[in-house]
């Protein structure tokens, strides 16, 4: 059973996203909404990772060796300025999208494994990830015209 690998993928993606939210928030402290919301959303990601942890541990016992190229590297540090903010939010968007689709995949596997507890965790968390995506999109839509057309 390979579910453990996807749980590991999702777990690490949530941990990385939490870390990236914190870094981007701190790098753009002069955008107070970005700063405060990134800190808040990082906490949600921490909670998601913590809820996945016991399932990852349990399924790991039945798992074969981890396949190659399982994890992705989507974040290489923050930037500054108007376009820098857009690009940083875009990085977060891609990372949240990875979490989002991984929740879907893990949710499907939970049905297959008839694991009600895991399914409950997926249902609790996937909606929050989807809201994170929406917030990032909303904030980027607001910032894009000024950063790309108006600012020098």
């Amino acid at each position, binding site marked *: 059973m390979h579910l453990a690998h996807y749980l590991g993928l999702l777990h690490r993606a949530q941990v990385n996203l939490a870390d990236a939210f914190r870094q981007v928030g701190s790098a753009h402290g002069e955008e*107070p*909404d970005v700063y405060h*919301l990134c800190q808040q*959303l990082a906490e949600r990601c921490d909670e998601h990772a913590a809820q996945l942890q016991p399932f990852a541990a349990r399924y790991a016992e039945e798992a074969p060796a981890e396949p190659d190229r399982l994890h992705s590297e989507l974040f290489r540090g923050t930037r500054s300025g*108007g376009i820098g903010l857009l690009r940083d939010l875009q990085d977060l968007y891609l990372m949240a999208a990875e979490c989002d689709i991984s929740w879907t995949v893990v949710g499907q596997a939970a049905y297959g494994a008839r694991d009600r507890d895991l399914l409950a965790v997926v249902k609790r968390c996937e909606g929050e990830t989807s809201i994170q995506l*929406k917030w990032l999109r909303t904030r980027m839509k607001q910032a894009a*015209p000024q950063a790309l*057309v108006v*600012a020098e």
Partner: protein
Amino acid sequence: MVDRIADPWGPRTPYGAGQEWPVRVDTFLDGDLRESDVDSWVQSASVLHSNGDAVDIAVRDGRIVGVRGRAVDRVNRGRLDPKDLYGWQANNSPDRLTRPLVREGGRLVETDWDTAMGRIVARSNELLAGPGGWGHFGFYTTGQLFLEEYYTLGVIGKAGLGTPHMDGNTRLCTATAASALKATFGADGQPGSYTDVDHCDAIALWGHNVAETQTVLWMRMLDRRRGPNPPAMLAVDPRSTAVTREADVHLPIRNGTNVALMNGLLREIIRNGWYDEEYVAAHTLGFDELARRVDGYPPERAADICDVPAADVRRAAELLGSSRRLLSTVLQGFYQSNQATAAACQVNNLHLLRGMIGRPGAGIYQMNGQPTAQNTRETGADGDLPGLRNWDNPEHIAELARLWNVEPEVIPHWAPPTHAMQIFRYAEQGSIKLLWISATNPAVSLPDLARIRRILRRPELFVVVQDLFLTETAELADVVLPGATWGEKTGTFTNVDRTVHLSEKAVDPPGEARADLDIFLDYARRMDFRDRDGRPLIPWTTPEEAFEAWKECSRGRPCDYTGLTYDKLRGGSGIQWPCTDARPDGTERLYTDGIFPTDPEVCETYGQDLATGAEFTAEEYRAKQPGGRAFLHAVDYRPSPEVPDEGHPLLLTTGRTVYHFHTRTKTGRAPQLDAAAPDVWVELNVADAERLGIVEGDLVGVASARGAVQARARLSGIRPGVVFLPFHYGWFDQDPAERTPRAANELTITAWDPVSKQPLFKVAAVAVARLADGGGVPSPAPTVGGSAPVAAVVPATVGGPAAEATSHTGGE
């Protein structure tokens, strides 16, 4: 005679449930003048608070000499707030701006209108020439101009320049009211009517010190409380105020925990079966999710988070749950606090759950903080589009494009209009290069003043300020335009219960000062804004023509004005919108049929996630199939972005006194009001004061991570761990050599609600220390209202002979 400084609320006229509120006519005239000395009385309404009290302006020899409440009006039935009784004197102040000013060699010097407007227009054309030129313009307006002026400004911004960067200082006072109404009911617009006070059997005041913010509304509540079958009263406020002292249940909760309290109360309402199952099923969406979410907040948990006794949470729930005609009012304790929109929506939830909406006595006032804030919202001079239209609905944009005869692409609608804090951020970053500030004083009223001053001083930023006086903000401008004010120009405005009043010109403005409408029209003419067919974009030239144009814009929308005319508003009472051919007398209450404007074609928003502000799309909204039902929003409590720590162990909250409005631009120039509250103070709980070695009158330093202020201590009934500073005090009336930092916003945090974008003025962490002995002299805080001292040794605030006004009841 009555001293309305010593007694801001005047004599009682008790009445019972279902009776008409008795008339009481309040008058104040200059010096020894009598009514027979007055040449003419000119119809208007109040502009020094948001209640919308109708007033007649007394004119003698071409000068304003006093005011009298209008007995015929539905809002105040003749009564006036002390700020209205005395505040008109500021019109006659000798330091009014009478000529335009421009900056020359670092100094502001007098000039003529051609020169001043010429500079603005030259800079505007320069900025418009490049790609994305629209994005260099920012407008920061107010909640104190007239409807006609906002609508004109809105058309200039949205169809002339095509910039989304326009907002009002309404962002600081009513943005959350609008957001909560939109989120729950689909569109802005108060469900209730002031006459609900006449019928209710319970009043809940949510973070609303109505006794000092809307005194006439408080008089109405007090008159019910003194009459037969008085309504029960619940107050939620960390301070001790005239309201909390009157209330049957007072919950002095920890600042920033409103959502926890509301969830706890809603849980009790649901668990005890105090909700209207039939109404909920027929008229709302989201009950199951709400019930599930609030179930996690038993009274003990809510009490623990809010730091009040669990038994009091239960008592409050019982008061709410057992009422049959419940009236709720909400203001800054919710709007300027943590999770603002989410908390305000829970009040809407309470009324939806109990089916307490759209009938006499069962009402909600999501209050406004300013007299004309409702119009800023309706006409699109803030973060909304004109006529309460939805920026994300292409058909709404097409309607505006047809109305103005412009291409739809000109109207910025790719995102919501830019909110005030973001406008200042773009100015800070340099992409906004022209900032036009009308009738507001951000150098004193925005959070973190050191930062705001830095932005306004940027040499690259061209700042235009339009005001009556050389305010703290005007001092930093490149061009200052002298405005005419209330009593010197004609226009309409609308209060919180949708009552529209006409305010007529009584006297000429001083010197070369001009009506704000004329200034905007002059700019539009000089910029030569044209429509698609080459005709002037803005064809109107008078207030009445502007009003007629606005009526067309409002046609068919929730705020329909098409049944109103200036003539209809003359002589009698104000009239509540919607007012149409079908409803020629206006509309007392909205949603009497339980049908809400949530239809996707009608609604003002497709909705947002209340925790993050993430926007939902049209498709997502349609999928909910609202079909005229209201939304019950469920939200978990989250702590404030700033909570006390070792270095800053106390919580700061800011607010008003009954004697002043905003940054005292007018009230500080009315002698009676100025004398009643001449200088800043800080309110401390006795236990905190004792621990810090502070007694009444001591000089105290209050510091946050942003800055520090000094103020004399008032030991008051505020909850332990919380300190209060009034936000009124800037430095325009201080000798520059003797200026000490005293503006509350030196301390406040730059943070805002994710949905309404309203700044959080109620939750800054601060440290307090004693700086100097007061020598036994009490602080300058008034002894009336929220700043009432706990010790009896402080002499009472009185106005004396200069404040003698009259109040006539019973047809005298």
